């Protein structure tokens, strides 16, 4: 909420995300090698790269879900432990068993559990905020539907609503448009842009090169190492794409 | 020259002859290694064998023979035996296959099968015999000559001693049998009822005129005691106003305790009258670790708890009493 943003702007805002020397391995194989990333606040950044390049790993490592071999991460100048409430995370859709007995609005409400704190129950205002978030992703009429009955696109929107409800200044989303139809993808990306216009910073792992230019303004190109990063206009070049994707440039 | 050779030959053959006969004599004198599964056999066998054999017992004081499965240690003990005794597959249920295997290499005797005819045995259900014969002293005494014969087959030199031991021991057991009869007989008929954890005392009841007996579990302790078992035995106890019931050393007392609580809640004050030796002897080197001691302890506890008077200890068993300070 407003309180969060004030807290951040009191000190130097600095960079939304600052990563130094991040290295992550799986056994002996390097997944991310010597990564340096800087993301300024207020951008809608896309993380792109071939499959297995370490995009999801990058998100999970900076959030502390995976343990890196080396590296240094700061959000708005502070370590991740202090910034949990300022970061909203939406994992990949398949990381969850959607047969869980619960409704769409209930999942969105789960996004507020960190705020509610130990031993307290969600209240009516929490439910109202969850409904409002569902409204923003155009899912209000499906609020009480079992999540097992939702389509892939609807499930994706529920996850986005869940990260929305926290009203955090930084949102990190892992493939929010994977497996959805064009219309839904449009709805989602437009929503994200509106959030960016409201002052939020977004870091999104994105898989579709054909619409990156249309929606994102910042780019991080990853293939085990950072090939290039910066404002999309300057970074989205054929040379960089070739370096990132090797010979295979899938449209 | 031939004279020396002849002398050498004579000396050699004499030496060899002495060695062989000495070896034979030595072999004849080494105690036969006998292995018994349970102590009820083991003690009887040791009394019969005297110095002629060393009797080892496989199952210890607290071990339930219905459950016992042969461990590698047990198999080694079986392997080093020259003669094996067991009761009956209905008792040593899980050792049946192992014993059968050993019976091909080592003389193995099922004492129940070797001693009694089918008609003499009591059956729990048609086709299922009750193996707890040691509870009837007179019947159990019949295994002594069978044991003696089995030992004598491998130690013919012992035959005289064995026969004498059998006569002496059977005299003791005969006196014991009468003593039990007298003691149990002193219990008023209306109270002469035996309630135990499992059905091991059928022969005891049959031999010593127990009016009625009940048990929570059947002859075998396999399978858990059910609510129905406990209630039905409690019903029996209440209906017959049984003064006391008994737990057993090889069985968890909880089933009896639960039954006692049930009977108490039905309005009849019944208590636990003692701990009986049913499927095993007591600890080694105690009086109850002998067959006579087992029967004596059981009889004394039953007699006292059910309101009888223990008979005077027979003179034939004075020797035993002195050995054990009883």
């Amino acid at each position, binding site marked *: 909420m407003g309180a969060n943003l004030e807290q951040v702007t009191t000190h130097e805002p600095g960079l939304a995300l600052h990563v130094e020397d991040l290295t992550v391995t799986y056994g002996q194989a390097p997944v991310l090698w010597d990564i340096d990333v800087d993301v300024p606040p207020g951008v809608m950044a896309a993380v792109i790269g071939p499959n297995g390049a370490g995009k999801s790993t990058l998100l999970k490592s900076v*959030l502390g879900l995976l343990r890196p071999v080396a590296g240094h991460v700061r959000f708005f100048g502070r370590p991740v*432990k202090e910034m*949990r*409430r300022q970061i909203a*995370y*939406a*994992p990949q859709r398949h*990381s*969850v*068993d959607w047969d*869980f*007995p*619960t*409704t769409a609005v*209930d*999942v969105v409400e*789960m996004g507020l559990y*960190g705020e*509610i704190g*130990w031993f307290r*129950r*969600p209240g009516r205002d929490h439910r109202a905020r969850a409904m409002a978030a569902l409204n923003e992703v155009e899912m209000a009429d499906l609020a009480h539907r*079992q999540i*097992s*009955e*939702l*389509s892939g696109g609807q499930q994706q929107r529920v996850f986005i609503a869940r990260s929305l409800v926290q009203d955090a200044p930084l949102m990190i989303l892992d493939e929010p448009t994977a497996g959805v139809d064009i219309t839904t993808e449009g709805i989602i990306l437009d929503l994200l842009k509106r959030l960016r216009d409201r002052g939020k910073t977004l870091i999104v792992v994105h898989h579709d090169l054909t619409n990156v230019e249309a929606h994102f303004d910042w780019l991080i190109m990853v293939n085990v190492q950072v090939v290039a990063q910066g404002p999309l206009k300057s970074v989205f070049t054929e040379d960089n794409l070739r370096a990132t994707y090797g010979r295979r440039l899938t449209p | 020259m031939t004279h020396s050779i002849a002398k050498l030959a004579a000396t050699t053959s004499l030496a060899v002859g002495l060695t062989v006969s000495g070896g034979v004599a030595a072999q004849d004198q080494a105690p036969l290694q006998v292995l018994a599964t349970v102590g009820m056999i083991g003690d009887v066998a040791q009394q019969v064998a005297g110095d002629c054999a060393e009797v080892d017992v496989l*199952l*210890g*004081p*607290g*071990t*339930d023979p219905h*459950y*016992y*499965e042969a461990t590698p*240690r*047990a198999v080694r003990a079986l392997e080093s035996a020259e003669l094996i005794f067991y009761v009956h597959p209905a008792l040593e249920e899980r050792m049946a296959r192992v014993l059968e295997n050993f019976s091909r290499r080592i003389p193995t005797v099922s004492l129940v099968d070797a001693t009694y005819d089918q008609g003499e045995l009591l059956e729990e259900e048609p086709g299922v015999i009750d193996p707890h014969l040691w509870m009837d002293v007179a019947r159990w005494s019949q295994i002594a000559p069978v044991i003696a014969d089995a030992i004598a087959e491998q130690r013919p030199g012992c035959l005289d001693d064995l026969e004498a031991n059998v006569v002496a021991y059977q005299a003791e057991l005969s006196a014991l049998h009468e003593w039990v009869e007298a003691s149990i007989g002193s219990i008023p008929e209306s109270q002469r009822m035996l309630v135990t954890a499992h059905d091991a005392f059928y022969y005891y009841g049959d031999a010593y005129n127990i009016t009625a007996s009940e048990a929570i579990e059947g002859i075998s302790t396999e*399978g*858990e*005691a*059910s*609510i*129905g*078992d*406990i*209630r*039905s035995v*409690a019903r029996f106890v209440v209906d017959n106003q049984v003064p006391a019931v008994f737990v057993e050393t*090889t*069985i*968890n007392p*909880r*089933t009896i*305790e*639960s*039954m006692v609580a*049930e009977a108490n*809640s039905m309005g009849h004050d019944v208590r636990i009258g003692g701990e009986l030796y049913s499927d*095993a002897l007591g600890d080694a080197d105690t009086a109850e670790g002998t067959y006579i001691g087992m029967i004596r302890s059981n009889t004394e506890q039953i007699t006292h708890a059910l309101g009888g008077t223990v008979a005077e200890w027979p003179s034939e068993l004075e020797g035993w009493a002195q050995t054990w300070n009883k």
Partner: protein
Amino acid sequence: MSLLAELLGSRVVQLVVIGAALLGAISGVLGSFAVLRQQSLLGDTLSHAALPGVCLGFLIAGDRHLGLLLAGALVTGGLAAGTVLVITRCTRLKTDAALGIALSVYFAIGTVLLTVIQSRGDAGAAGLSTFLFGQAAAITRGDIQLMAVAGVLIAAVVLLLWKEFKLVTFDPESARAAGLPVMALQSALTLIVAVAVVVGLQLVGVILMVAMLIAPAAAARQWVGSLAGMVVLAGCLGALAGGSGALISATGRGLATGPVVVLLISAIVLVSLALAPGRGVIWRWRARRRLSRTLTRESRSSADLRRRHVPVRGLKR
């Protein structure tokens, strides 16, 4: 009816019915989390791992001191859970393989200890083997009190940590990202499942305990659409199966309680899988038939379908 009255008047029947109902309720509640975490066999591993603990407790205390035996069961149950964790983290094996390994190893150790105790010939060893299948009929008032205390503690923990358990079960990744101590919460859940297992050992034994954990939850899942509903219904179904199973087993001589209870709860699961609206096999079969009849009656063009507004709700699963 008079048979029922007669049964309920019996002290041992009362104790076993209460005990079995308590156990059913506790394992129904906790089993819901285990089933949703896809760790249904965790209960099986924990109960099989209880055997060495019971034997160790006996070897230490030297007698059938129940409190120590159960404490031992809890300790080895916890160790087994830890072993599963180590295996999944340090090797490439998945949870199901790790659970299977831990189950076999700990149960084997328990069997070895059991035979060691029995061959030592200790007079007190009798009855340790009843932990394998339980001996419900021999339950005491003290056992019931212990179960009630455990039940209250478990209920308190689940209520206090409700939303944390819910999130950790549904989406552990997001939970960690939100700053929740996921490892600690999952360990807490495992620990209370271990307590439930230990509490239930006397009634149904090591081998059948897993059914008490899985079946009520699996049945409840077919009928309700919320975690709270599932947990409550699972508890109720477990209690129902426990209580009535105990009653039924009291009607005849030689009817073991534990297996009857498990048969009853299994019947409840089968009925639920078949009949539940929306998810049940029969419901779905009939819905499919209704739909195909509707389709064959009219033309099958997609335009028609769109016009027709055919209800497809619920068929996604």
